[in-house]
C-alpha cells in the first residue's frame, strides 16, 4: 500500500514484551460438558500443578545457572537499571519537532490548542516576517495532558508528535509539569520512528 506521503511501510524493529513466536497462543477450549476424567478433578489439578511446577523448576535452574548468551525466560525488566525500547505506537508525552536550524516547525496555527480536549496547550503566536507565523511561547501543561494524541493528529506541519518519553512525569509540584517550548523541542531525528508510524496510520483516513 502506498501511503499518502509516498513512504513505504517500514516494519519497526523495536519490540516490547514477549515476541509472538515465543508466546504461541493456544486456542481457547470452551467446553462446558466435561468428561468424567475431568470431573474427577484430581487428575486435572495434578495437570495444572505439573504446568506451574515445570515453570518453577525451569526458572530455578535458570536462576542458579543462567544460560549463557540465551535470553532469559523471565521477562521482568529491572526498571531503573534497564529500560524498555518502546514501539513507535506508544504515546508518551507530546514534544515539538525542531527543523534543521533548531527552530520549531510549528506555524502557530492554533489547531492543536483548539483541539486539545484537556486545554493543555497554550500558544502565543508572533510573526517572524509578514505572513510567517511562529509560536513565541508554546506552553504544554503535562499535568493536564491526557496523552490522547489529538494534537499530533491535527497538526498540519508534523510539528507536534507523541514521543516515547515517559519519565519525569511524577513531580511534587504541578508547576514543574508545565513545559515551555525550549523544553519541548526535539531534533527531528529523535522522533523519526514515530513520524514514520504516524504517516502510515493517518494516511488510512486520507486527511
Amino acid at each position, binding site marked *: 500500500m502506498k501511503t499518502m506521503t509516498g513512504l513505504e511501510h517500514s516494519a519497526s524493529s523495536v519490540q516490547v514484551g514477549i515476541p509472538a513466536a515465543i508466546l504461541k497462543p493456544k486456542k481457547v477450549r470452551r467446553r462446558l460438558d466435561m468428561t468424567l476424567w475431568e470431573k474427577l478433578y*484430581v487428575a486435572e*489439578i495434578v495437570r*495444572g*500443578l505439573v*504446568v*506451574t*511446577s515445570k*515453570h*518453577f523448576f525451569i*526458572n*530455578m535452574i535458570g*536462576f542458579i545457572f543462567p544460560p549463557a548468551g540465551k535470553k532469559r*525466560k*523471565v*521477562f*521482568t525488566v*529491572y526498571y531503573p537499571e534497564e529500560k524498555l525500547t518502546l514501539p513507535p505506537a506508544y504515546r508518551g508525552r507530546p514534544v515539538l519537532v525542531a527543523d534543521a536550524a533548531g527552530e520549531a516547525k510549528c506555524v502557530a496555527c492554533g489547531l492543536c490548542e483548539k483541539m486539545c480536549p484537556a486545554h493543555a496547550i497554550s500558544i502565543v503566536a508572533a510573526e517572524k516576517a509578514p505572513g510567517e507565523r511562529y509560536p513565541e511561547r508554546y506552553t504544554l501543561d503535562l499535568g493536564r495532558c491526557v496523552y490522547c494524541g489529538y494534537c499530533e493528529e491535527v497538526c498540519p506541519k508534523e510539528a507536534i508528535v507523541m514521543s516515547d518519553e515517559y519519565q519525569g512525569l511524577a513531580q511534587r509540584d504541578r508547576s514543574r509539569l508545565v513545559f515551555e517550548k525550549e523544553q519541548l523541542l526535539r531534533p527531528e531525528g529523535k522522533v523519526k520512528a514515530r513520524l514514520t508510524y504516524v504517516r502510515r496510520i493517518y494516511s488510512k483516513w486520507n486527511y
Partner: protein
Amino acid sequence: MAADLIESVAKILFIFGVNVGVFAPILGWVERKQSAVMQDRIGANRADILGFTAIGLFHSLADAIKLLTKEDFVPDNASKFFHTLAPFISLVPAIAAFAIVPFGGRYELFGREIHLVIADLDVGILYVFALAGLATYGTVLAGWSSRSNWSLLGGLRASAQMLSYEVAMGLSIIGLIMVYGTLKLTEIGAIQENFFRWGIFLQPVGFIIFMTCAIAENKRIPFDIPEAESELVAGYFTEYSGMKFIMFWMAEFLEMVTISAVVTTLFFGAWHIPFVTDAMLLSWFAPAGPNGAAALAMLVNIAVFFAKVSFFIWLQMTIRWTLPRFRYDQVMRMCWKMLLPLSLINLSITGLVVLLR
C-alpha cells in the same frame, strides 16, 4: 527428673525455634519468591543492607520492622477484649499442634532414651483435630468482634467452612487409624519404617481428602473464602493492623507447617528414608561409636523429616499459586457432596479389608 525437664525444654525450644524463628519469617519470603518464579517473574529483591540483598530475604525483616512499629488499631465499637484475644486464639493452636508430631524416633544417647516428640499422647491425632477446632474460634471471634460487615461475613464463612471440613478431615483419617491400629503418632511413624507400609500406599484416597481438607482448614487459596480478598477486603482480619495482623499471618504459615508435618507423619513415612530402617542407619554410623552413631542417626532423621515437611510446604504453595479460588457454594458442595461421601466410602472399604484380612 532434672534430665527429663532439660530434655523436654530442649525439644520445646527446638520446635518453637524452628517454627517461629525459621519457618514463620521465611515462609513469607518463600511465598513471594516461589510465586514469582512460577510466574516467570523475579520477585522481591530490592530491600538491601549495604547493597547486599540476600535474594530478597531482607524483605521479611523489613516487613517485621514495619508491622511491629505500626499503630495497633482497634475500631470504635469493636469489642476490645475479644478483638485482642482473637489473634492469640488463632496463633496458639497453630504453635501448640506441633507438640505431638514426632520429628524423629527413639535413640539411646549416653544411657538415656531420647524420644523426639514433645508430648507422646495416646490420643495423638485427636489432639490435632481438637486444636484445629479451637483455631476456628480465633477466626470467628476476629470476624465477630471487629464490628465490620466484611469481617463478620468472613467470620461466618470461616465458621461454616472450617466446621464442615473438619468432619471430612476426621473421617479421612479414620481409615488410616484402622489400618495402623493406633492413634499414637509415634507408633504410626514407627510402623512406617517399612516403605510399603507408608500411609500413601495404604490410603491414597485418604491422603487426597486429608490434604484437601487440611488446606481448607487453613483457609488458603483455593479455599480462601473467609479472607476473599476480592470480595471482603481481607475477610475476618480486615480490621487488624500491626502486630495482631502479623499474628494471623504467622498462624496461617505455622498451620501450613503443622499440616505438612502431620501429612508427613501419617502418610509419608515420618522420619524414615525409604528402604532404610533405623537399624541400618545405626550400623552405617557404627564407626562413630554407639553414642556418635545414635546422634548422627538422630540428625539424619530430623533432617529427613524437615526435608519432607519442606516438600509439603512447597506443594501447598504450588497449589495456592496454581488453582483459582472456589466460590462459596462450590466450597460447601465439594465438602458435603464429594469429600464426605468419598471419605465414607473409603472408610467402609478399608473396614472391609481390615476385617477380611
